[in-house]
Structure formats: C-alpha cells, structure tokens
C-alpha cells in the first residue's frame, strides 16, 4: 500500500508544484470562454425553455475543464517520465500494475476536480446556478475524470513523442469535447449531428453532469450513467491490460 500511496502523492505533488500552469491556467481559460460566449449569446438563447444560456454554459465549462485536465495530467506526466527516462524509477520497484493504474488515475481525478471546483467557484460569481441533483453531478465528475485519466494513461503509454501526444489531444480529445454539447444542447442541432452526438461518450458525461444542476437534460441521467460507466469499465480494463503486459514500458 505504501508504494501506491507514494506514487499517488508524487503525482499530486508533481502538478501541485506547477499549479499556476496546471490549475490556474485552465480556470482562466474557462472564464474567458464564459466571458465571450455569455456576452454574445446571453440575450439570444434560452435552453430547455427556461435555462439562461450563461447558466447552461457553466456546468459544460466545468465538465470540459475536468475532462481535459484529467487527460492532460496522466498523459503528460507519463510521457515526460518516458522521454526523460525517469519512468525507470517507477518500474524498478515492486509496484503492481493495478497500483500504478490507481495512482495515476486518482491523481488525474484529483487535479481534474480541483480545476473543476476552481472553474465553478470562479464562474459562480457571474451566474445564478441551481443544483438540482448534486449526487448526479458528483457521480459524472468522478466517472468522467476517471475515464479521461485512463485515456491519458493509454495515450501516454502509446505516444513516443510529444507531438504524437499533441495529435491525440488535438485530433481526438478536443473534437470530442467541443462536439459534446459543452456550448449547446444537442437538440439545437440538425438530426444528423444529433444522431452522431449519440456516439460521443463525452456527450453523456456533460449531459449527465448538467442534469445535476438543472434537473433537465437531453438524455435521461440513468442512461448517460450506464453509458459512462460502461466506457469506464472498458477503458480501465484496456489500460490495465496494457500495463500488465508492459506494452511500450517493459520491452
């Protein structure tokens, strides 16, 4: 257990030591989104008939920050360790692959939740938010960050260079988050794009998280939860399988 706790603590300390970049910067980015989109759209859009656009946007921005930072934490930590070679210090000790997985994913979740709370705290000043079903919000934040933390591990294991990781981030994670309904309700999309959104797992994370605030969503929260939980099970199993076999780590 000490091995796991140490690795977890080391991962926490790693992002905490550069908190300006890992926490403050994403909070500022989310605030800029809110400032710009809210300024332009506040008077034009009402979502679900009752929810003001700025209020609608905040949970989306919170969840987007949560997901992006969960991914960024595990992926960048791992690839830095691989490229600088200090991954060896984690591979030499008797840390099991399950402990390795747990430490990286939990640390990613911790950073994601700190950033998410930061975004929430920073934006709550400008917006009147209700919290209709907090447990749903918490459940989706936890599962969503765990999924992206696992995905970050997979990307970090797979990528040999920073630009491969950047490609993964820019060509997979970014489109999936931007097209997941952070900035809009998918019901405002044409049918084709609405159907396509149904295949984006991040849509369910955002939609379910938003349900926690407004008590309304595009999809029933239980459905979203089932999809998200299923995604987590598959990704966690895949990550554990890669770690167990030592793919690109012990070769």
């Amino acid at each position, binding site marked *: *257990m*000490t*091995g796991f*706790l*140490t*690795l977890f*603590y*080391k991962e926490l*300390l*790693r992002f905490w*030591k*550069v908190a300006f970049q890992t926490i403050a910067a994403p909070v500022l980015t989310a605030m800029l989104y809110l400032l710009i989109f809210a300024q332009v759209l506040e008077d034009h859009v009402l979502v679900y008939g009752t929810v003001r656009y700025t209020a609608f946007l905040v949970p989306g921005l919170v969840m987007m920050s949560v997901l992006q930072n969960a991914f960024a934490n595990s992926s960048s930590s791992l690839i830095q*360790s691989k490229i*600088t*070679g*200090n991954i*060896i*210090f*984690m*591979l*030499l*000790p*008797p*840390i*099991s692959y399950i402990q390795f997985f747990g430490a990286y994913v939990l640390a990613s979740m911790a950073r994601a939740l700190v950033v998410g709370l930061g975004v929430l705290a920073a934006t709550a000043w400008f917006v009147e938010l209700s919290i209709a079903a907090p447990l749903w919000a918490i459940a989706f934040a936890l599962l969503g960050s765990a999924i992206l933390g696992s995905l970050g591990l997979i990307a970090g294991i797979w990528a040999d260079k920073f630009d491969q990781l950047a490609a993964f981030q820019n060509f997979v994670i970014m489109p999936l988050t931007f097209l997941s309904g952070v900035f809009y309700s998918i019901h405002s999309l044409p049918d084709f794009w609405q159907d396509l959104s149904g295949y984006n797992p991040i849509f369910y994370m955002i939609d379910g998280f938003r349900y926690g605030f407004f008590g309304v969503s595009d999809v029933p929260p239980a459905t979203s939860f089932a999809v998200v939980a299923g995604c987590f099970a598959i990704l966690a199993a895949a990550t554990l399988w890669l770690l167990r076999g*030592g793919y690109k780590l*012990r*070769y």
Partner: protein
Amino acid sequence: MVPAIEVQNVEKRYGALRALAGVSLSIEPGEMFGLLGPNGAGKTTLISIAAGLTRASAGGVRVMGADVVGEYRRARRMLGVVPQELVFDPFFTVRETLRFQSGYFGLRDNGDWIDEVMHHLDLTSKADANMRTLSGGMKRRVLVAQALVHKPPVIVLDEPTAGVDVELRQALWNFVRRLNRDGHTIVLTTHYLEEAELLCTRIGMLKAGRLVALDSTRNLLETFSGLQLKLRLSRESLPPALEPRLVSRQGDRFNLRLDDYTELEQVLVGLREAGEAILEFDLQPPDLEEVFVRIMNRHA
C-alpha cells in the same frame, strides 16, 4: 546457497536481432562481479531483464531465488539498480527523490537511512536542491543513492563511471568496495577494463549476445595473458632462438611474449649470447585489456 543472481538460458530477440542468444551464469552472494563486453554485446539488456525492465524471450532470471517475472515483487526488493543514463525527475529535490524511491519500495519512516546514504555520497549539502540544479556528478550520486534506499542485498551498477571525473570515480569505487565489504553482492558493467580488474573478483564477458568468458579475474589474467616484453635492440635483429616469442616488430623495436617472469632470464641469456645490447626495456604485467581483446578476437 541460493545464488544472488541466476541467469538461465536467457534469450532476447528484437525482431530478427538476437540481443541475447542463450546466456547462463550464476553470481554468488557477496561477489563483486564484472560484466564486460563491447557496445551492443547485450550487457544492459541482461541487466534490464534481471531488473524486470525488459522481458526475456526465453529463459529466466532469479534474484536471491525469486523469479523476476513470477515473483517480481520479492525479486525487485532484492535488487538495486544504478542505471547507465543520467535520468532524474526535474520536479523534485534530492530528498524528495529519495523519499519517493523509498516509498515505492514500501518503506515508510526511512529518513535516517536516507540521511546516512546522502552522507556517505556527499549529498547532504544538496538535500534540498532541485535535481535540475545538480551537476552531472551529483546526479550520478543521487542515482546511486536511489538504488540503495531499500537496502537491497544485490546491487547492479550499469557503467557507473562513464563520463565521470577522476575524483568521483575514486569515490564511487571506494563506496562500492565498502558496500561489498558490508555484504552486498555487486554486479558492475563497465567499459573501463582497469575498473573491472581493480574491483571485480570474477568476470563474465559478453559478445554479440553470448557469454564468451566466465572466470575469476585472476584465472582470466593467468590463462590468457602472459607478460609483454618490449625491447629496442642495438643490431635491429632478433636472435633466432627468440623468434618464437616474437609478437610484433617495428624497426629496432621488438614485442615479445613471455608466459611468466622466469622466462625473462632465458631471454636475457639469448640476447647476451648473440651479442645484442639492449637500448630500451619495458616489461608489462598481464592486464585485462589484453585478455579482453584476445577473447573478443577469438570469437570474431
């Protein structure tokens, strides 16, 4: 007695390349063992397999009796590895680095031992310095300290003195000797044959993934290497009686080989009888470099 490291028919293939082609050897507890070989011979691959960083394609390695795959947790606790590359985590200080390493091995409250290791390696004044700010030599010391935080009975040093200045090399040698005296088994890979000759009691030589020699340092020196006698002679010719000993010549300079010191007298007698005068004379004792070159050539 259980061997400190037991390597059994280890093979490692990377596609068509065979980095290790069936290596077997056993290193006894308390030994100071040298693993020698040219670049690409498979030294680091073998060490990586023992450390669990690389998986063998066939065969297996045990550390203090524990299989490095099947009983990896026990095996890894028994082993401390000083890697060849100067790797470090730029986020942390020396003390943090050592505390983490100790924690990874499941040890809590290991501060006293960490202080002691830092003291022995002259790291105490740098304990709270960030790893980034350390010189190459200091980073090397931290690598050694990291390998020792969990007090492993077997310590592997992969070319510990590559690119290290004379002072640190001497300090590391003394430290390694002391670890060995304290009962640690030491495995050393090196390019510096002088280093192996000085420190190691037994030597294995790898070439192209095969073990081409395995014996005590003394036996290797005696078996493979005689004395080398370098002479400059007045008449620029060698008496016929000495021809069989000739290894090479350049003008009036002759390189002769002797099996041992007793043969020196016969050579001097031969020269006197032929009326040769010696202008220059140099007798070199056997060294590992010659042994190494010969073994490598023999398996060319």
